[in-house]
């Protein structure tokens, strides 16, 4: 749907041209709506994700004058806005993760340590992971999921949430510590 002329432009150019021609903003939707949808659908499910994507672009559109045009890539900005929108559904998000906890995938659920020792697969560890995510404070969860599910670099997360990179690292570490503890803390991989 992106027209050939806008396909060449970087996000910042698009946003800049949308100041004079608001309808140019649609190209940004065409570029990133599906990506944001996939991300939000992981956190809130497909129904809420549509709303959240719509709200995100409306909020982005009305805030486009404040966009820092030096940032060519608008993804961190959009993820940041989406994160704020997701926050309004925080209870639903936690409930979604808790519901996963109650739907075991393979066989009987045992203690976390046993499962890790038996060599966990992603689906077998799902209930434990989901429980851990449901229990994380929102600020830590946002950082963790922007990294793990949004594929943002630390600097991009920092931009998205408007926090220093150091804070990104400390929140991520704290979140991962809790997840590992839930998994039985036998994971040998230590990341700085």
């Amino acid at each position: 749907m992106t027209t050939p002329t806008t396909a060449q432009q970087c996000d910042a150019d698009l946003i800049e041209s949308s100041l004079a021609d608001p309808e140019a903003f649609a190209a940004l939707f065409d570029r990133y709506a599906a990506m944001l949808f996939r991300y939000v659908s992981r956190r809130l499910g497909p129904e809420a994700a549509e709303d959240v994507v719509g709200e995100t672009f409306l909020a982005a559109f009305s805030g486009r004058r404040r966009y820092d045009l030096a940032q060519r890539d608008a993804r961190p900005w959009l993820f940041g806005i989406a994160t704020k929108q997701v926050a309004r559904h925080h209870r639903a998000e936690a409930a979604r993760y808790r519901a996963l906890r109650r739907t075991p995938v393979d066989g009987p659920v045992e203690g976390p340590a046993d499962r890790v020792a038996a060599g966990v697969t992603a689906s077998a560890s799902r209930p434990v992971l989901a429980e851990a995510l449901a229990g994380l404070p929102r600020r830590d969860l946002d950082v963790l999921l922007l990294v793990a599910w949004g594929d943002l670099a630390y600097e991009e997360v920092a931009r998205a949430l408007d926090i220093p990179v150091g804070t990104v690292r400390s929140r991520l570490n704290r979140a991962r510590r809790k997840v590992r503890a839930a998994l039985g803390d036998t994971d040998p991989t230590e990341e700085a």
Partner: protein
Amino acid sequence: MDDLELIRDLGRELEHEPAPSLLRQRERLMDAAAAGWRRGPGRWTLFGAVAAVAAAAVTAVAIVVPAALTGGDARPAGMDITARNPGNALNLLVIGSDTRPRVNEARSDTIVMVHVPADRKNIRAVSVPRDLLVDDIPCRGVRGKGRAPINTSFSLGGAACTRMALESLTKARFDQTVVVDFNGFKGMVDALGGVDITLPQAVSDPAAKLKLPRGKQRLDGTQALAYVRARRSLGGGSDIVRVRRQLQFMEALTQRAREQQRRNPVRFGRFLTVAAGSVEATPRWDLRSLRALAGTFRDTGAEDVEFAMLPVRAAPEDSNRLALDPAAAERTFAPFRR
């Protein structure tokens, strides 16, 4: 396995692909973009253009068609409200309907409320977005469904139902409902030998089978239909932008009709026959008496019509829908309540 990898795996399990309904969100965005454009400073010339266009739409529906259909002698007025009170204030409801061959259900694509004061000056045309949520629509088959978008009233209950829904919303009465079938456009345009429009930029929309160069050109019926219907390539799918384009086209069509009326009466007659077939008025127009009504518009020009969008905002219960801005809407409705 790394804990981040486990989380990534979980994420992939939970992920959904976007459904086509995500495009609704794009339309919301485009409506906001169109509204932003209208509101921006220094955009009043555009607003003026829209007013002129609306004037033309009203003129086409309320003046050109009936006036020309009223050849022959004028007889005493019939029973319809407009004809009984040719010099009085009028509220018209104009619905542009899009009945596509493959889809049986008629959709109201364009809803415009028009208030015509007794002096035929300061005519107000107010466009109603089809996603506007209204309380319980008061007609059979729709009643009891709770809040619903206004266009449901047309698809489920027809023009009469849309009128009732708007009457209960505005607390005003509409004397006349006029449904214009977009398919009839094709024939109307061809009967006129084409309509001239000027495009600020070239348009290429394979989906609508429409490819037009920039600048002034004459559209035949098929092109004109594609042009007024196209959503994606022109204005990015926005309703408001599309309504504006349709009204602009109406202005061009009216101009062409007036021109043909002078130059080629035979062609003009053909146009009127086709036009009459694609406009459905309720109460049914008494053509003879409408001549008297048309006469009252003699001194009305495009500059006498002001066009506006109904003041709306995102509905609190559903951001995909629109809700009235109550305070501003009161001001918009006031002239309609006589």
